[in-house]
């Protein structure tokens, strides 16, 4: 039975069963592979997406629970989000596998708190594991992006 999900601003028809985690719907059915599988039990944050602007672990979100919520994946940020630009500027990624989730958690953080302090960054980012240990640069990139004036146009 086809269901419609709103992903990155587009309504998309999917046929996966209602208990299928959104992660696998995005990856296997919609081909949006920027969202990663890391643990399957909401421990690592690699599968983080935005659900109506909130950071959520898509590995633990069954398709049936998505409903009309607006999903944003890393592909939906367009590559020119201030956080993505800060990530590139500071060469944050190492293996890169966790970075989609890291960036989306950071997007949710800056949406709620435009100038987060270290404690706020820790609270928002502790659910996203980086085994390469890029934490120091992730923190620096969040601060760098937060310092970017909101009015700055995206790089063309």
């Amino acid at each position, binding site marked *: 039975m086809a269901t419609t999900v709103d992903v990155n601003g587009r309504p998309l028809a999917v046929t*996966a*069963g209602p208990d*299928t*985690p959104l992660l*696998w719907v995005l*990856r*296997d*059915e919609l*081909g*949006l*592979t*920027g*969202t*990663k*599988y*890391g*643990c*399957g*039990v909401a*421990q*690592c944050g*690699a599968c983080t997406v935005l659900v109506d602007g909130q950071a959520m672990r898509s590995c633990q979100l069954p398709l049936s629970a998505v409903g009309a919520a607006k999903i944003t*994946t*890393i*592909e939906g*940020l*367009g*590559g020119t989000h201030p956080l*993505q630009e800060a*990530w*590139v500027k500071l*060469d*944050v*990624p*190492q*293996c*890169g*596998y*966790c*970075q*989609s989730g890291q*960036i989306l958690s950071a997007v949710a953080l800056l949406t709620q708190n435009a100038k987060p302090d270290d404690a706020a*960054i*820790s609270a928002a*980012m*502790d*659910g*996203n*594991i*980086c*085994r*390469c*240990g*890029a*934490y*120091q*640069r*992730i*923190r620096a990139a969040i601060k760098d992006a937060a310092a970017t004036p909101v009015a700055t146009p995206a790089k063309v």
Partner: protein
Amino acid sequence: MTTTSRTLAVPTRRALLVGATVVGGALLVGCSIPDALSAGSKFKPGAFGPFLKLAADGTVTVVSKHIEFGQGNHAGLAAIVAEELDADWSKVVVEQAPANAKLYGTPMMFGMQGTGGSSAINSSWTLLRTAGAAARAMLVEAAAKSWGVPAAEITVANGVVSHPSGKQSGFGPLVAEAAKIAPPEAPKLKDPKTFTLVGTDRVRRKDSAVKSNGAARYTQDVALPEMLTAMVAHAPRFGATVKTFDDAAARKVPGVVAVHKIPTGVAVVAQSTWAAKQGRDALKVEWDETKAEKRSSSQILTAFKDLASGKTPAPEKNGWAAFDSKGDAAKAAGDAGALEITYDFPYLAHAAMEPMNCVAMVGKGPTRLVFGSQFPTLDQINTAKITTALPGSVEIETLFAGGSFGRRANFASDYVSECVHIAKKVGGGRPVKLVWTREDDMRAGYFRPMVHHTVRVTTDAEGYPATWRHRIVSQSIMKGSPAGTPKLDDSAIEGTKGSPYLKATPVVDAQLLIADTGVPVLWWRSVGATHTAYVMEHTIDQLARKAGKDPVAYRRAIYQKAGAARHLQVLDLAAEKAGWTKPAPAGWTRGVAVHESFGSVVAQVAEVQMVDGQPKVGRVVTAIDCGTAISPDQIAAQMEGGTCYGLSAAMFGEITLTDGKVDQGNFDTYRVLRSSEAPTVETYIVASANPPSGVGEPGTPVIGPAVANAILALTGKPTLSQPFVKT
């Protein structure tokens, strides 16, 4: 490599040839190893050699013989070529080499192609400089011909070829003509003093954009027409095999297309990842555990300790083996005043972010693998054994991998072989993607070995080591190599062996005992140094404390005696930058450690405080001597990341077994370092004209002892087992 570098794989020539002949007996006679291992390959390099492609649009493509899984080696490798080529760095891109031992093998790996031992940059240094310089000479000659001017009058800078007459050109328009010119046999390399790119902050990663927008392609992301996804039910104990299985429920899961028994378990093949998982979880498998390892890790550790203490006699065959001895060994047993210390290290999982996975196509045309291959030649050999083909004919497209830390360089190519077995059953060349869950990954073994050290040291009147007795009990990582278990497995002793502290001690009796278990073990970022650096550095601080001496001054004196100039230099640099002689910030205590691995020497000063009974690490000042620095920013990144990886293990890392079953399965039970626990690492690089040495691993083993030494300074108590925090 400069000093104590250890080859990642050290099977003998003979063992390797035997390995190659398993599938191609005719290869042996009169054939070099790289020739034998690449026989069957159809790959041919272009006009500018196997490491470089120049395009008419001016793009410079550097071909990397090494996988990129975080280390930043692609940036460094590209910079080496670009420097000698005088290319425009913004037009340089990196491409992953195909599997071909003849073109891309590494001498230190006996001609096999692979990535490990922190050797990518070092093993490519002269090779890639030469490749860049040769192509530069070809471009210059092409311009000289086309302009009718002497080649000697032409200069190249930042991707532009120029003549004083005003003629100039980018690389693009010259490529077609340059490709017809024979490469010079010994092109002149630059004087490093004239480098304009290498060693500057312009050498930055080429993959940050694709790794920040979701476009980077990992094995997990491979989608091919008709591709099936497989998951495997594995035995709960190492060494068990399938006795019987019931797949009735699995086959009823929508999307499941087949169930196959394979050597490592039962595979469910499905149309999607989720269907494969549902199917796999619905299998009922009965295991034959006749040959399974059923001991708990606590029993294994007790067995190791009893061997070290002599309570259990060593086996007559393959017993204790000395790796450093001088003076009267009886004296090294020490007297009543000796400091005797024992250390225990647990099994560790690598727990890379991307669980192990592979895509294989078998049964139509050459066997083809698409995945993050860390050791393509071994993966070819192991695949060819299953498909009965020439190893060189196995095609491998290497993708980015979501970390490895040693896990993907496996003598048995464990998960690759598993995927090939399934793809062979599926047949027809149909792509099969094997996906391991986090639990599959964590319970599959190939851990950092459990290790026990016993150290007994007596000191002279000044408080410096006079006699040093050292016993190490460990499993052998090299057991799985084609050469079998060496009596002196260097991967278990490196770092104790070669230590300046032993060099400066008059009487030494250091021995290793290899103890076997059924738990598969493997190298884990920085390998032997994961435990030897801790033992040597924490012991030294305990000795300094006993002698009433400052830990930095105590080390300096020993390094001077041992002639360890590079140790001295990084120690002094770290101490100076950390302000060692000044009081630490209020509430913080400093600890220092120094260790050499993979040709590089790293010193760290860590600032530590205890919060709720567990250490919190703040500022970490790092000094490294890694020879010529190619990319200072990526060296810093590796020091930051390596420190986190080492700290994660020292603080929390522990795989335990209960009755042979791995207790941990996911990040809720295998705790790893998180953002709020990460230190702030400052990196200082010693200026050096030596060839570049390792960077990916040397930053990992130093933080553990630096933190333990800070705890010692704070509490007066040594920390004799890891992890510091029991989960």
